[in-house]
């Protein structure tokens, strides 16, 4: 399993991560980020892409 962390002090709710891994990240009705905190190892590549595209560099994979 992979543990995902988003630093909510940094996140500006840009939603770029949503395109890379929509099953993990989504914007709610108020345009605020929601995410699931764990994912299967098979999702690693898309989650790394989400880490890459986040303008605030707010997402980390907890190793």
């Amino acid at each position, binding site marked *: 399993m992979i543990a995902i962390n988003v630093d909510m002090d940094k996140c*500006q*709710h840009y939603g*770029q991560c949503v395109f890379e891994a929509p099953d993990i990240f989504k*914007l709610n009705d108020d*345009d605020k980020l929601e995410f699931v905190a764990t994912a299967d190892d098979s999702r690693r*590549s898309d989650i790394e892409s989400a880490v*890459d*595209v986040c*303008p605030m*560099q707010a997402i980390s994979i907890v190793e």
Partner: protein
Amino acid sequence: MSKSVVIVGASMGGLRAAEALRNNGFAGRITMIGEEAHLPYNRPPLSKEVLAKEVTHEAVAFKLRSQVEDVTWHLGDPATSLDLDKKVVTTASGKSFEYDGLVIASGLRPRVLDLPNGKISGRHTVRTLDDAIGLRAELVPGTKVVVAGAGFIGCEVAATARGLGCEVTNVAIDPYPMIRPLGEQLAAELQRRHESHGVNFKLNHGISDLIGTEKISGVVLDSGEVIQADVLVEAISSHCNVEWLSETKLDISNGVLADSALRAVTTDGASVEGVYVVGDLARFANPLFDNEPRRIEHWNIPTETGKRVGSVLSAYLADAENFAELVATPFMPLPSFWSDQYDMKIQGFGMPGLADRYELVAGELSDELVMGYFRGEILIGVVGIGMTSEVMKYRKELIS
């Protein structure tokens, strides 16, 4: 013997290329040559939140993934020449590095004004961490700051300096701030918002000289008007860091010309095998829009180009059967940008600067909004202030 890759420019584009080489199975030696002494860090915060707080490498450093643990870092020693025939890069200290694959990732540096009384202190640019540390120290409440240039970085620095209690004048030769990506209507609205936060604009003007003996005390506009200043921040445009390529036959007329596989191209139009370009320097055609090669100075491009190079170059070095197929796969990354100014979250996709027409597609001009940019009937760009979900709807349309 196992093959080796040299990457010149130890910033975002170079880092992403190194990661992608490893992710695509390249196991040989990777050497990163960097002019700056720092490990790769993220530049956008330097004009925004980090400039408003304490500027440290830790606050902006990219996390180094396990894939790139074994990369050799050769920092603080810029590349000074390239020999394409011998496949060797030489650095300022006289070291030479042989390669089988080369990634050109040396990016841009700010252009500064050439002024008669230019050799006085108080002049700043914002490209590197060290630049931001130096500027931050001067931005204390009451400081008179003149920002030259009203593009992304100029507008962000103006907003951040206002937030820190400085008096800010923005001087630019353009008629409105950020007019190129935004178009006149939204740019005029942006100006209004900056003015409501207390920024004073001198538009349609250039700077012709500085006043001061050791330290700057004023800025002279081309109209003759003098504006008091303790600090001048120059964010007018950039130079490409291509001097180290000047002895080669590569087309470096504007950045480095690249084919759709991001191989560097010579002035005769031939692609050079094994030599690739990423990031702000790469001038390539994007079939999403047209066949005109352009450089795109947005933050998602180092990642997109780095990934592309990682996949093509690793196949090349492995003599992989799918190399030709990879090269032929179209490369069409969607440019994306954002900017934080005051409480505004500006986010854009596509190439709004190429539009012949724009239209407010959601929200209101004086509030949160989404502007659509069209060439003929086709949507080629979208910019939003707030309204993230709406912006994302139009983003989908751009890639469909």
